[in-house]
């Protein structure tokens, strides 16, 4: 598979320009991102790596529209969303993003089906349509026989598959995976990564944060961060200007 490298705006899902994030802790100012410039193109699979405190989580939160930049610009699908308000960012998360977390983050009192349906519910889909779609998604992650179960009755790998199904429910432009295998054993980790690879091959754009290099191997592009800056970019055919 040939990685897509293009500088035209349309093909860039995420573009950060001189991205700064400064946290104020008491009187002290801590710079989490110190002026980052990077683009992530449609259809790519990225791994963001780095030690804790390197700024990779902050970057993930910024990209995931959960946090806002202090300075600089964030272009999502070519549109500057740096100044967007809370509701507008919520709408971007709902319509364009899918999240996968280290600790799965399923809602415990809801069944597998209801968990998968959750984004559709906020999109305002009717119950019958979203139930049918949830069954399709469950089948894609081989959990069609677990729809009525609650998260507590599932194994870690199964829970992460539910989370993946939920992340895919709205057919998002970008999947954000934050240490998706952090809580899984190596065999299950491999299964999850293979599943993600399948979806990537089907055309999904994935940005993943990890600190395990063998997990990062699944991604075509790897971005190493240190002290809030990009240290190094490795990857097949990424043009580093």
């Amino acid at each position, binding site marked *: 598979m040939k990685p897509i490298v293009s500088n035209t705006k349309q093909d860039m899902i995420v573009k950060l320009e001189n991205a700064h994030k400064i946290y104020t802790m008491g009187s002290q100012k801590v710079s989490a991102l110190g002026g980052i410039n990077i683009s992530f193109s449609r259809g790519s699979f990225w791994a963001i790596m780095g030690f804790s405190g390197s700024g990779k989580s902050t970057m993930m*939160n910024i990209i*995931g529209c*959960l*946090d806002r930049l202090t300075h600089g610009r964030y272009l999502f699908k070519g549109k500057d969303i740096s100044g967007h308000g*809370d*509701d507008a960012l*919520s*709408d*971007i*998360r*709902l*319509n364009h*993003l899918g*999240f996968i*977390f280290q600790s799965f*983050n*399923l*809602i*415990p*009192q*809801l069944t597998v089906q*209801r968990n998968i349906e*959750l*984004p559709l*519910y*906020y999109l*305002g889909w*009717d*119950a019958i349509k979203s139930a049918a779609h949830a069954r399709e998604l469950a089948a894609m992650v081989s959990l069609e026989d677990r729809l009525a179960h609650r998260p507590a009755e599932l194994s870690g790998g199964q829970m992460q598959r539910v989370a993946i199904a*939920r992340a895919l429910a*709205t057919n998002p432009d970008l999947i954000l995976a934050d240490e998706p295998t952090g809580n899984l054993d190596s065999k299950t980790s491999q299964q999850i990564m293979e599943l993600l690879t399948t979806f990537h091959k089907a055309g999904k754009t994935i940005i993943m944060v990890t600190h395990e290099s063998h997990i990062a191997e699944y991604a075509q592009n790897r971005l190493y961060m240190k002290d809030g800056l990009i240290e190094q970019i490795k990857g097949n055919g990424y043009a580093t200007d």
Partner: protein
Amino acid sequence: MQQIKFFRELTSGIQTLMLHKLRSFLTMLGVVFGVGSVVAMLAVGEGASKEALEQIKKLGSNNIIISSVKSMEEESSSTTRSFISIYGLTYQDHERIQESFSSVKKNVPVKLIRKESRLGHNSLELRVVGTSQQWFEVIPRELLGGRILTQTDMDKQSAVVVLTEFGARKLLAGMNTIGQSIRIGGDSFEVVGIIKSETGQAGAMQIPDRDIDAYVPITTAKTYFGDVTMKISSGSRLREKVELHQIIVQVEDTAKVEPTAEAIDRMMTLFHKKKDYQINVPLALLKQAEASKRTFNIVLGSIAGISLLVGGIGIMNIMLASVTERIREIGIRRAIGARRRQIIVQFLIEAVVLSTIGGFIGIALGITIPWLITLFAKMPTVITPTGLLLPLTVSIGIGIIFGLYPAARAARVDPIIALRHE
């Protein structure tokens, strides 16, 4: 679409509450007892005041009752062996009222005389009421048999009597009723009718009729029994001359009752040197009763308000705990793309579901308690639609008000921190 969404919010809210059945139930109890006590208290209050109002209405809300009373001076002078004491309302008073006030529709003279009556072996101490046929219009009671007094009876001074059901049972037991002759004092009277009677006290006033009444034409009473009565008190014999014991005036318009009563009072003072009469206005009592009912309702409302407030605080407390407990869930929902408003709605619905279900259980409780009170304490209770709808509405409102702050707190949660929360 919006309805379907609301319905789903509702069902998922109920499902969440069902996860903690005991906790949800305990949270509800505050509202349950709040609403229950309000409904019950309103029912008891309504029952008590309704009884009082009905009693007062029996006096007639358009009536003015003027009664003869022995003035204080007369009372003291009579002990100084005065031969005869003369006081009270006169036939002239009755005529003056008739002539002076156009608002007076009916004007009933009443003469009251205690007399022993007999029929065969039966005897009964009667209160002979000498009056006109208008008595029966001013104090309407059910006619059980025969007829009431007529103008012809007045004109002819007929020796006829209308008995009460009680009197008829005592005197006429086992005999013919209508047409029977009985002896009252030394004279023979024909029983022409039997009516029901009401007894009791309404507010500060005796209801005009009694069980032991025997109604005779006033003309007859005057001729047969005269105006002078003999009283034996503390060893001394005392003679009293009272022409009329009561005048019952009925006014055509309720609005004119009180002005007419005042005007009658002014006129009476011109002709009575001593204050030997008393004017009672049932309407004033009625107004007084209604005013005290309002006060009662305000007191009830305050108690109810406080108990519902306590219920509301209980809900707020649990909802705040729930927000803290479910902070991660809030983070997940926000990350997925829920807007702040949607989080508010979710938590608000849970609070309102709690308070509404609590309200309904409270109503069930509030209906049961008055029922038990009526059953065991024989106290009248009345449940009005307002008495149910008001507490229910308030309980729903409580859910909204006390759910708002926890819901707003939930919506303010930072999703990044919430997702990291263990």
